[in-house]
């Protein structure tokens, strides 16, 4: 893990500067986030945390390039983000993010070949390696509809990692899973991260998940989303100790202070 002082001296991988996002409903223009700024450094597990309505998912979509900010700028490795692309892979909350007409292997291979990240032979090898990493080798030739929700999310994570993107964007990927599976998936994500130290941006509304998964936590306030704080999380060894409880209380107080 990078110490904060090292990170500060390096240049940010992803920089979000004064970003205001708006979307149109049939009868109004809604401001989702207002002048949000933060920097993500390589190998960060950066968590966007906030109650529903704080625009954290909208913010992630903007970083994914699906939404253009009305104010401010998002840049990846110093280049402005202007549209979706394979250098920022999304892992969605929905189970239907896998292509149902392709097997687990084909899903990963197709992502690599369609985006031009790898040729056919390399894509096959990479797909095998990453599917093995998430422990689904047994199901490599299964169609997604035969898999459980947790397995589908594992494939989506394998697909995202196989693309070897600059940053992996995860939009509440475990929110639709049952509590036991969610815990297991969080530990698996940490284990995968220990292997390759990829950069991940993780959206959640669960304080506990944020502390468990993240190294750095951005707190957003709702309606419209504004940055309330940017905190350091506790290391995985400190989970279940007083340090974790203290941080959880601190975040709780910050998020609900105004109520």
């Amino acid at each position: 893990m990078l110490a904060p002082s090292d990170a500060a001296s390096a240049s940010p991988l992803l920089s979000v500067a004064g970003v205001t996002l708006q979307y149109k409903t049939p009868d109004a223009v809604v401001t989702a986030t207002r002048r949000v700024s933060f920097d993500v450094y390589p190998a960060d597990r950066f968590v966007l945390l906030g109650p529903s309505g704080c625009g954290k998912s909208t913010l992630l979509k903007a970083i994914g390039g699906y939404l253009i900010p009305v104010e401010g700028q998002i840049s990846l490795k110093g280049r402005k983000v202007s549209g979706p692309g394979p250098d920022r892979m999304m892992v969605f909350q929905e189970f239907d993010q896998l292509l149902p007409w392709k097997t687990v292997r084909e899903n990963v291979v197709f992502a690599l070949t369609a985006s031009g990240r790898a040729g056919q032979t390399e894509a096959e090898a990479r797909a095998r390696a990453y599917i093995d990493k998430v422990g689904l080798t047994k199901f490599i030739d299964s169609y997604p509809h035969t898999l459980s929700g947790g397995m589908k999310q594992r494939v989506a994570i394998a697909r995202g990692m196989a693309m070897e993107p600059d940053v992996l964007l995860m939009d509440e990927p475990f929110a639709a899973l049952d509590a036991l599976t969610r815990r297991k998936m969080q530990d698996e994500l940490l284990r995968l991260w220990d292997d390759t130290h990829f950069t991940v941006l993780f959206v959640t509304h669960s304080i506990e998940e944020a502390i468990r998964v993240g190294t750095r936590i951005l707190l957003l306030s709702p309606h419209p989303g504004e940055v309330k704080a940017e905190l350091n999380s506790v290391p995985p060894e400190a989970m279940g100790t007083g340090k974790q409880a203290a941080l959880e209380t601190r975040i709780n107080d910050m998020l609900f202070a105004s109520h």
Partner: protein
Amino acid sequence: MTDLVSFRPEIIREVQSGDAPVVAKTLSPAERIYRLGFVRKTAILAVLAVAWEIYGRWLGNPLPFPTFGQTVEAFVSNVASGVIPQRMLVSLQTLVIGYGIGIALAALLTTLAIGSRIGADLLETLTSMFNPLPAIALLPLALIWFGLGTGSIIFVLVHSVLWAIALNTHAGFRSVSNTLRMVGQNYGLRGLKLVRLILIPAAFPAILTGLKVGWAFAWRTLIAAELVFGVSSGSGGLGWFIYENRNQLETANVFAGLFTVILIGLFVENVVFANIERRTIRRWGMQH
């Protein structure tokens, strides 16, 4: 309250269901056969054929209503003499041309429709105008434009196929989940590539429904159109075969002609489309 809690001991058990059998009971052979769809359907067909035979014999007049046996006989002799296969070929040839053109036009219209708002409006307006219009109603107009011949039949065929397929495909495209679209864009797919690699397979259940409905419309329209003016199209198709035999009061042959129409319908529905379905959307879990 605490007394009550401490009073009840905790229970912890070793679970020993590892050696319990998973298969409770194998199904009996009769039940297993009954579970096959084609067996049940064949049984229904057999019952219908027997009922037909009984009624035909009871009536005893082959002029208005030949028996099942006489119909099969007429069918076999017409197949053997090559009349039915030849008429069938003429019909199917026309059908495939009309169906093909219809699919191509539907593909063009729906691509325009997902590409732009105005394209969608165009498709919606055209479909709501022309979909309710029976293809046969256009036949007189077709005769003026294309004259007596295959051209006119193909024109009405295209009309009957196009709107059903375009409507279903467009509805299918619109029901593709936003997540899948975003996944495609995430791979860097745009425009026609996104349509070809993501939208078409994702909307395939709806597209297939469109193709099935379109095929049924086309087949019906074709036979009807041939009945009206099959004479002109050279040797004539199955519709003309039916019409010709009615004029000669060869009722068994009329039935044989209808029989052929039904057989082709059953074949396409239960063999061609059923196979496509099994290999695609059922395998993918998009339909059960």
